[in-house]
């Protein structure tokens, strides 16, 4: 089980790197869908005995993160007719290298964080890495839809961190996280469409034209 | 020790003879060559004796103490071997220049053997100032004057830092001998943090550590070739010697400084070779490569310091040994490269890579020595660059079996690998564009072979590179001993696999050389048995191919530099009909010159104070005098009576 959990966490990290390094939007969305699926499997793999609670958590996560949200994003792409890839502010190679630095920093911090309970070291490292890499994507990409993907990655990182206390605080963690995600994506979806209709472009750099 | 002083005296005599006999050039050249050769050999003998296992020697010159221990003898060889080659190469220059050159050599030798702060700093200053005069030899050109000025400012800033370092180390009433400094080392606050940082700054300015390297490219590119060879091969190594000496006197430097040196070394190495790739001036490119190799040497030094701090003696010995060995090797092949570049400049009159080409046919002997030096500097077997890079790699991975932070030094291996790949690309570009293919301009087409006076020292240096490559045990053994003396541990390599590795590397190099020779022979025989034809290179059916259609240096480097973006410093200007790319020196033009311009601008506001009217100056005097009187009387701030 320990090995399986490590494997799943490793795959989560790899999907994060895929999001950082790929140029195509559809690949990004597929990667975040796969990440959502992995995150759904994660609580099942971490707990040796499966209670109804963990099963519910797993199915709920897979449903929302791996199916609904990616479908919603794909629909948004089709509606907005996004075609061109835009070179981000920070080049792809620099993003990949910064991603490695993020994982290194996260690992160094993870070994020192005083989190109660026993769980694989990789869990904390993965969660912090996803948070940092999600912030990286949010800050450096130009297209609003990729920024939504970055935000989802950030939420995934927080969710993984929440898995360290899943047995202590039953429903609060999951609902809070999922609600966050829903609210975030809905707001961004609305904003995305408003941007698209008002300025005929999804380039969020043009948001600065909103100031007086 | 007397032998050493006699040798230095003979060197100075060589310069004097060239000066006094300048009306009889043949006699002057011969006496210069003989006396310089004799001087270098005599001065090097004590060093060789110490490296072969003899005891360290001490001596006095007046009230100043000098000595040759293991570290000094290694660096003495670094000074004298390329120094002699450059001196012989530059035997046609005016006698005043030759005089300055040999005095510079003597000063360099004194720097590495000084045993007290005063002789060290005096020799250091003499070396720096003489280097300025040697660099600005062609002072009629504005770019040479500017390069000399930047160099002068940089070296004196470094000397200031060194003064501060020695002052803070010796303390208010301390004695200034190196032994006294070593004794005081244990009592320095913070493990010697102030001393170490000042040393890194001051010696780093001399060595060319990024970002303190900004004076290097201009100075080395505009100096005459044998002076560039001396600067790149020897003078910047004095910074390395200084760092070595500080480490050996300090004893156990703190670990954070080791990580700092390792990181700065890695950054210097990568940026140095990247910027070298962007150059299209042959000597500027070689100058940036010196920055890269200084980075590699500092990585070895950093690894050694980490070995001391984390108490892994093998890593300490290997790190210092790698740094020293790479210093010697770099002095050898970088001098050779500069001498070769000088030969091509002498033959064609241009340093621009995009106007050269096809020189292999016109200067075959220069091409062979240049190729040997290029293969050596990239670190490929069977030559000496591979040996010293192996030692540095072995030092970086030596911490793998110990627990603790020293395991992280393995990550530096990736930086070293990247540097190796980029250096390969850079020197493939240089050799290919300058010597191979067809000449790209009329000047290159009329290149002629260098004369014997220039070729002889080049072949000597090339032979040294090949020797160390094929028989690495000759050089690695003494290097390990030097490393042990700096780290103050006994050299015990039993069970580490290092002696076997060194012999097997020699075996591998010999096998490589033999297989290449046999293979070429066999394939030559096979080719002769097949029908062969000569034809023009396939040009894909173009009607009028010219030599200018060949790949240029900038085109060769473009895919590589594209991945690094603005970090490479390449600035392009395009119009509908023209394209021009230029590599700027990022630190100088991006940081230092703008700061200097801002400071000048701010100071210009104070210009009205100095307007030249005498009576206003007298008013200034009266005002200040009044203020002082009032201050003394206690009416304006200050103390009452």
């Amino acid at each position, binding site marked *: 089980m320990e090995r399986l959990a490590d494997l799943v966490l490793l795959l989560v990290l790899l999907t994060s790197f895929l999001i950082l*390094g790929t140029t195509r939007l559809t690949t990004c969305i597929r990667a975040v869908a796969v990440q959502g699926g992995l995150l759904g499997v994660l609580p099942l793999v971490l707990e040796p005995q499966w209670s109804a609670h963990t099963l519910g958590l797993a199915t709920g996560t897979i449903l929302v993160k791996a199916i609904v949200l990616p479908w919603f994003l794909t629909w948004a792409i089709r509606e907005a007719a996004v075609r061109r890839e835009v070179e981000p502010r920070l080049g792809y190679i620099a993003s990949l290298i910064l991603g490695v630095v993020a994982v290194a920093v996260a690992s160094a911090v993870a070994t020192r964080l005083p989190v109660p309970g026993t769980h694989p070291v*990789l869990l904390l490292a993965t969660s912090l890495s996803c948070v940092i890499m999600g912030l990286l994507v949010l800050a450096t990409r130009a297209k609003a839809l990729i920024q939504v993907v970055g935000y989802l990655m950030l939420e995934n990182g927080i969710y993984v961190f929440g898995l360290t206390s899943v047995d202590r605080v039953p429903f609060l963690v999951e609902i809070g996280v999922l609600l966050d995600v829903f609210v975030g994506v809905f707001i961004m979806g609305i904003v995305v469409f408003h941007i698209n209709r008002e300025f005929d472009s999804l380039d969020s750099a043009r948001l600065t034209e909103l100031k007086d | 020790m007397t032998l050493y002083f006699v040798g230095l005296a003979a060197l100075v005599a060589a310069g004097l003879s060239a000066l006094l006999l300048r009306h009889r050039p043949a006699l002057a050249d011969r006496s210069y060559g003989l006396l310089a050769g004799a001087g270098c050999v005599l001065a090097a003998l004590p060093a060789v004796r110490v490296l072969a296992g003899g005891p360290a020697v001490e001596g006095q010159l007046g009230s100043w103490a000098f000595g040759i221990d293991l570290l000094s003898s290694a660096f003495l060889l670094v000074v004298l071997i390329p120094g002699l080659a450059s001196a012989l190469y530059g035997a046609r220059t005016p006698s005043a220049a030759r005089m300055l050159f040999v005095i510079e050599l003597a000063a360099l030798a004194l720097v590495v053997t000084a045993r007290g702060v005063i002789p060290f700093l005096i020799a250091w200053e003499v070396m720096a100032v003489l280097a300025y005069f040697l660099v600005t030899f062609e002072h009629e050109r504005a770019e040479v004057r500017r390069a000399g000025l930047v160099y002068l400012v940089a070296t004196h800033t470094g000397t200031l830092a060194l003064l501060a370092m020695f002052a803070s180390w010796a303390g208010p009433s301390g004695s200034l001998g190196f032994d006294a400094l070593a004794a005081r080392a244990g009592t320095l606050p913070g493990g010697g943090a102030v001393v170490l940082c000042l040393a890194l700054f001051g010696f780093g300015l001399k060595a060319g550590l990024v970002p303190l390297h900004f004076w290097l490219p201009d100075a080395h590119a505009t100096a005459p070739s044998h002076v560039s060879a001396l600067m790149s091969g020897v003078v910047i190594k004095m910074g390395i010697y200084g760092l070595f000496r500080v480490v050996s006197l300090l004893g156990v430097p703190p670990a954070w400084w080791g990580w700092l040196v390792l990181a700065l070394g890695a950054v210097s190495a990568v940026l140095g070779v990247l910027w070298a790739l962007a150059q299209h001036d042959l000597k500027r490119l070689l100058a940036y490569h010196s920055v890269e190799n200084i980075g590699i040497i500092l990585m070895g030094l950093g690894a050694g310091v980490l070995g001391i701090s984390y108490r892994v003696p093998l890593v300490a010995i290997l790190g210092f040994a790698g740094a020293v060995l790479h210093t010697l090797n770099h002095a050898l092949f970088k001098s050779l490269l500069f001498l070769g570049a000088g030969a091509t400049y002498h033959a064609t009159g241009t340093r621009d890579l995009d106007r050269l080409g096809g020189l292999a046919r016109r200067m075959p002997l220069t091409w062979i020595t240049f190729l040997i030096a290029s293969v050596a500097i990239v670190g490929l*077997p069977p030559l000496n660059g591979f040996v010293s890079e*192996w030692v540095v790699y072995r030092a970086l991975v*030596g911490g*793998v079996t110990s627990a603790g932070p020293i*395991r992280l030094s393995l990550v530096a291996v990736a930086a070293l690998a990247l540097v190796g790949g980029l250096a390969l690309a850079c020197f493939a*570009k240089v050799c290919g564009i300058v010597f191979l293919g067809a000449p790209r301009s009329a000047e290159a087409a009329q290149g002629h072979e260098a004369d014997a006076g220039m070729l002889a020292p080049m072949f000597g240096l090339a032979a040294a590179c090949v020797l160390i490559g094929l028989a690495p045990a000759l050089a690695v053994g003494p290097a390990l001993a030097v490393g042990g003396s700096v780290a103050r541990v006994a050299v015990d390599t039993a069970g580490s696999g290092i002696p076997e590795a060194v012999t097997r590397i020699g075996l591998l190099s010999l096998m490589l050389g033999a297989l290449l020779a046999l293979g070429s022979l066999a394939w030559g025989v096979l080719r002769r048995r097949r029908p062969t034809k000569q*034809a023009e290179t396939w040009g894909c059916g173009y009607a009028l191919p010219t030599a200018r259609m060949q*790949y240029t240096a900038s085109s060769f480097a473009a895919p590589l530099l594209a991945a690094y973006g603005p970090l490479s410093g390449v600035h392009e200007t395009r119009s509908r009909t023209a394209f021009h790319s230029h590599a700027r020196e990022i630190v100088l033009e991006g940081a230092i010159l703008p700061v200097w311009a801002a400071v000048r601008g701010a100071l210009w506001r104070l210009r009205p104070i100095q307007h030249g009217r005498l009576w206003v100056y007298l008013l200034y005097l009266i005002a200040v005098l009044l203020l002082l009187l009032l201050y003394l009387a206690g009416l304006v701030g200050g103390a009452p009576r």
Partner: protein
Amino acid sequence: MTAGPLLSLGAVLVLAPALPGVATKTKSLLTGRRGAPVLQLYWDLVRLLRKGAVYSTTTSWMFRLAPVAGAVTPLLAAILLPLDGRGAVLQFSGDFVAFAALLALGRFTLILAALDTGSSFEGMGASRDAAFASLVEPALFLCFVVLMLATGRLSLSGMLGAAPAPSLAMVAVSLFFVLLAEASRVPVDDPATHLELTMIHEVAVLDHSGPDLALLLYGAALRMALFAALPVSVLVSRAEWVAPLALAVLVAGMVLVAVAVGIIESSMARLRLSRVPQFLVAASVLASLGVILQLLT
């Protein structure tokens, strides 16, 4: 030197030209063709050895030295690999540096020979070759770093054959990417293109003909074999096995790797040239993730 390592070396030297054939055959079968026989390269080598050569008037002795170096350097690199699963013919502490440096020497002479012809096509190929090779070196060395951290041994004979772990899986994938780059396969380079402007390695050897080309093709096949042997040795520890079984498993693994290369070649196109550095950095990223994983445990 016992017979075991020498026999394995001999076997790999003999079987190396079959690997490109396996890759091409796989690709042909997957795209609905019968394709050339697997042993086609052997026939090509024999044919080329019998032919004469045409030399350009611009070239010098460097052009004639490069094919010899291109075959000798992978040969010497092969004696450093533990092909029989236990020990190499020649091993010493830090021999992975010599492994990479020998292959770099072969590449150096090849680039110089390309520039020797004075043609802009070869210059272009040489420049791209050098650019991508510089990005492959860090990935290769980072893989070695992971192996050294995992086993604590500093020689190739000790590093290859560690206990399985997730970091080793990353190393194997990274080494596979390195293979694709060094053997000039899709997605780094397309060996089947006939447009000079899209070639990388193929155009660097465009001017060589006859026996020289035979040496170069053999050298390239041998490099592919060496880089295929690396991931197999990383994933499967053969130290305990009997010599013939270990050799058979190595050969089978190398064939599987060649099949994987063929599958990739038939399913994706070559990357845009500006995206190839990204791909190579991804190989380094995988290896560095392996390093971090290894340092964490």
